[in-house]
């Protein structure tokens, strides 16, 4: 149990990532570069720091503590030279107002299991469990596999939230201990997929078909939910939703338990600011509820199993 992973966030009693009330643990590092990414702090596999303007009282203790001389206080606030910053985190503790935070701390399987066990009553009473998300958890398959195995030994339901892009051998390591796969299909047209996310979608679709056929040594199939982010101006088109629906109907059949359409939300602009960058979708309006409703209808028609399709996050 010496495996560690870099974790950057924990959502407790989440209702968004699988059935029941769940703890979602977010692992750092991702192979995709989605234009709309809601977790920009998840992309780099290294620890980083970020700075919250509202909390800063200008005490300058961080500047003195930085061994790389990466920090300067300017009229616009703290400037972080990201070329120099190694993510060592030595500036974090000296800050009296906790304006600097370290994103990404190493957790052992044992530590994370203890965190999960503390909430097992909620899981048991709600039919929930744990979800590993990211970033892309399958970039750290050894950890995921060991953690899920430990959870299952305690009777805790395990869910993997994945973009589907990691090599198949990583999935082979993880799937035997996975009760549910939350699998992202974002865009059916591979050229557009490449443009939006930086990678083509063929490897993702191939992995999906392998997951469909995967059985654990005990002969059990992990449950399978597909998730599609509906990003206005990108993926939220009738054509895309219809093609995904047809693909799922043709290829997954009854192996598909649920298909979730996740409406775009704009709650992550502040994260980009704290990382010193700007979110390309900052001014993007939310998904129009009427468009959302019509996409849901088209998805239901294309899949042919209306009860299996849901939309979340509409306001």
């Amino acid at each position, binding site marked *: 149990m010496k495996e560690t992973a870099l974790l950057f966030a924990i959502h407790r009693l*989440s209702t968004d990532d699988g059935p029941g009330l769940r703890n979602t643990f977010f692992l750092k590092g991702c192979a995709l570069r989605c234009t709309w990414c809601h977790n920009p702090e998840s992309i780099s596999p290294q620890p980083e720091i970020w700075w919250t303007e509202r909390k800063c*009282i200008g005490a300058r203790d961080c500047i003195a503590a930085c061994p790389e001389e990466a920090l300067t206080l300017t009229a616009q606030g703290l400037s972080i030279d990201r070329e120099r910053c190694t993510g060592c985190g030595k500036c974090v503790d000296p800050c009296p107002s906790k304006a600097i935070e370290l994103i990404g701390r190493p957790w052992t399987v044992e530590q994370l299991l203890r965190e999960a066990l503390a909430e097992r*009553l909620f899981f048991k*009473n709600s039919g929930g469990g744990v979800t590993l998300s990211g970033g892309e958890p399958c970039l750290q398959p050894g950890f995921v596999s060991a953690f899920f195995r430990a959870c299952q030994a305690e009777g805790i339901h395990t869910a993997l939230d994945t973009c589907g892009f990691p090599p198949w051998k990583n999935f082979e390591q993880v799937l035997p201990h996975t009760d549910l796969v939350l699998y992202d299909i974002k865009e059916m047209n591979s050229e557009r997929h490449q443009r939006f996310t930086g990678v083509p979608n063929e490897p993702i679709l191939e992995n999906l078909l392998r997951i469909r056929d995967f059985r654990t040594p005990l002969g059990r199939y992990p449950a399978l939910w597909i998730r599609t982010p509906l990003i206005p101006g990108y993926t939220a088109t009738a054509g895309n939703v219809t093609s995904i629906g047809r693909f799922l109907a043709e290829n997954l059949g009854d192996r598909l338990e649920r298909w979730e359409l996740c409406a775009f939300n704009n709650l992550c602009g502040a994260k980009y600011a704290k990382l010193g960058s700007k979110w390309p979708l900052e001014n993007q309006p939310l998904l129009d509820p009427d468009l959302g409703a019509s996409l849901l209808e088209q998805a239901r028609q294309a899949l042919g199993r209306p009860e299996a399709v849901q939309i979340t996050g509409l306001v």
Partner: protein
Amino acid sequence: MSHHASTRPPMSPRIQTINRRRVALNIAHKRDLYCDNAEFLVYHWSGKSEAFAPATGEQASSSRINIGDHNCRVDTGMPYPFVDEMPSRQKGLANTAENWAQDYRFFITHSPAVIDPCERIVGDFHWQLDEARTFRYPQEVHDLGYAARQLGAGGISFTHTCPDLSIGLKLGWGGLLSKVRANRRKFEEFGNEESASYLRAAEDIALGIMQYIRSYAEKAAQLEKAEEDAQTRGIYAEVAAVCSNIAEKAPQTLHEAIQWIQFFQIAERMHGHGNGYGRLDQLLQPFYDADIAAGRITRDEARDLVGELFLRYGNYFSLGGRNRELCDATCETSWVCLEAFDMVGGYNHLGVMWHADIDPKFWNYACDVVGRHGAGCPTLLNYELFRASELRSGYPESDAWNVSYSGCQWYCSPGNEYSDHDVNCLVLVQPMQRAIDAAIEQNAPDFEAFWKIYENEVDCTANALRDFKNATYLWQPKVWPEMVTSFCAHGPMDKGRDITDSRSVNNAFTSVNVLAVPNVSDSLYAIEQLVFAQKKYTLAQVRDAVASDWEGKESMRQEFLNTPKFGNDHEGADAMAIRVSEQVREVLESKRNIKGFCFRPSLFQFMGHTYAGPMLGATPDGRKRREPVAHGMNPMHGRNHEGMTATMRSFCKLDFSKYQGGSLQVELQPTFFPKEGRRGDLVEPFATSFFQMGGVQINLNVLSMAKLHAAMEQPDLPEHQEIVVKVTGYSAHFVVMDRKFQEEFVERVNYKTL
């Protein structure tokens, strides 16, 4: 078994009419409750008045604060018209039950019968007795009150218990009167003049109430004669018959039972602020079952009648819990009552008492109702802990099984106790401040030496409170006996001793709300860490920084603020919270009142946290002077960074059977709930888990921040006027709340996710 609701039952046009009238009264500020001033909210005593909230008359405060539409009576804006004719003003005021009862009888028989069209359950009142009769303790009591106030404690002794209405439902007013007369003759025969005198007073009370109920029968009959619409005439005739039947006789039908309860509540609330009224499903079950068996009523009619009771005023009632054999007490009437609330919604204080064997469908429905209505109703409660806490305190099994949620955060064995709940307070900040000064003077070498000084100061404050309360108790049954309540209690009418008196009911503890436990424990933990362990600051520097409200000491304040805090499942911070809570509990439990019972702490205080900030000054937990203090045992606003479950785990490190309540306040955004699916399916596992962990009470609000902000800007929009929130242990329409309460409310952590 009949069909149980899973969605909101619709209101009939008649119920809609009554509901519109209810909302209109609240919005027009006809139900507002006032207290003297901010000092009263913090210490529960300001020295100005012994009464809770006289709106008119000589004891009404000029500098009053509106604490929300939490008042049973309907305000006319006018003083009581017959003040000068009150017997005590005509013939002289005396501190005796007989003198009090003469006033009460005059008062209630000179209160108008109020009947509105369409109502099948009637009864409203406009004035409380403390607006017409002087309510004042002798100077010696006041002197002790000021002494306690100086040391950080205070309180009034007034109502806030729970009668056992089954006594009255069984006997009726005629039966209660016969019992009183028989006992009066007994005491006269054996020469106990004190008890005989009390029971003569009780006769006056019963005769007054009976006359008051008859006045409703007469009024309804008059209205019937004048009414042209046949349907409305039929309702008046029915009301006249019901009131006439129960003026003397015991109620025979569900309709009569509910009307009897409504009149009891009015008669009782006329003499004071009011009580909880017990386990509604258990009280009504025999009447409901008999009516159904005889074909006198349909299930929907029964639901509408209970709904009307809720629309008159949403008092503290409870459902669920266990029965005498400790099996699940949930019955068909529980469903009817909860569906009645689900139907009428809005302002209400109903609670549902969970236990390990509760009917899972009913529990899920209760969780769904609070999730959908979002206004803290029903309050979710842990019956197992209620009962455990009563047994631990020494209640006999025969009293403890029947425990009922009775008010903000407290619970009673109906009719078996007068434990002075909810309006005594110990403000823990003051002993801490004195301890800091003393430790500087004595040059305390380490934290344990400092702690000893702190313990001593808490003891000092508790002694002052004990002396004040004991002086009050000596006078209370003479100055302001609670005689209507005493009719539905086990003991008073047999012994001729008021429920507020010693040797009257089985249990008479003194309950004390402890204010600012999280602030004090966070302060002490920061002092332990930064002053004594790390030696970064001296205690004198802490005292000076706090005295100057951290002026020019922002870096230091941030260090104190960012030392781990209670509510984040942090071992050290939580251990200090337990140490602080346990210490004040042990101190209070070591004090005795003159009734022979100990003081009991409640880790809750209903509203003082909002106003206490400037009165108490800044605190070493990094809190600035203008900030509120923590609400009950809930972590300070914005200090629980680790999510709701971490807060719940911190909470449940305390053994709540040792305390008299400590509610968890949860404010959720509506977006927490997926659009599809029952809200109960998420609230239920959340609440069940909390109770299995040892939590005692959840006040759950589901509300949109944006909507609350909009309501503060535009309070006149109809959709804003209907917003009800569970403020602390009680509910209020948001738009009628004092601005400061509104601001504090929207500042609370609002969870998009848990």
